[in-house]
């Protein structure tokens, strides 16, 4: 499964996305696999947000193979 990365996470990974090995079926598993397979991202990933198909997603939420999954820090857009 591919996971899109943004901002600090993208910079730390050195790439706009990472690929997770093995099947994942929940958001909690996505976080777990990142920590296992990309240990240098683990600390950042722990305080990051997961989105599935452009909606915020939480640990118990399901993830299917065809879903678009993204990981990013709390947003800081706008200004002021």
């Amino acid at each position, binding site marked *: 499964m591919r996971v*899109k990365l*943004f*901002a*600090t996470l993208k*910079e730390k990974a050195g790439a706009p996305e990472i690929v997770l090995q093995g099947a994942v079926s929940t958001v909690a598993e996505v976080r777990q696999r990142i920590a296992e397979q990309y240990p240098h991202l683990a600390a950042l990933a722990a305080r990051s*947000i997961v*989105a599935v198909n*452009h*909606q*915020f997603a*939480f640990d118990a939420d399901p993830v299917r193979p065809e879903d678009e999954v*993204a990981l*990013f*820090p*709390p*947003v*800081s*857009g*706008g*200004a*002021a």
Partner: protein
Amino acid sequence: MSAETPTLIEITHAPIDLNALQRAITTPRDGAVVLFTGTVRGQTGELETVQLEYEAYTEMALAKLRQVAEEMRARFPLIHGIALVQRIGTMDVGEPTVAVAVSAGHRGDGAFEAARYGIDRLKQIVPIWKKEVRPDGSAWVEGDYMPTARD
């Protein structure tokens, strides 16, 4: 866009044109437009910022901007036009980075309150990040809002 209640949602590299936004959302029923624009602040206390760089998760940001517009309409039913525009890329001090514009028949119809609500929500749930370029280096600005299942 509906002619009666136009909604303009945009993530763009181009400079934000406030005159064009006003024209785009003003319908014949409107006598009032409130426009908020965030600008690149060069001085924050003693800290100096040279530029800001904005990055977006564009597809999700567009979906979330549409959601913000829907929330604005639900809370402020008398408003007519809405524009939510975020510029991405590199911007200099003083330049508009984001604009929230609302039109309504009269100034008491909630346009001020809706614009304030819109920029508050945009900064909570629209996936856009900024990096500050300072004289001594650059760093991502961390937000602090953690979304819940209701966002």
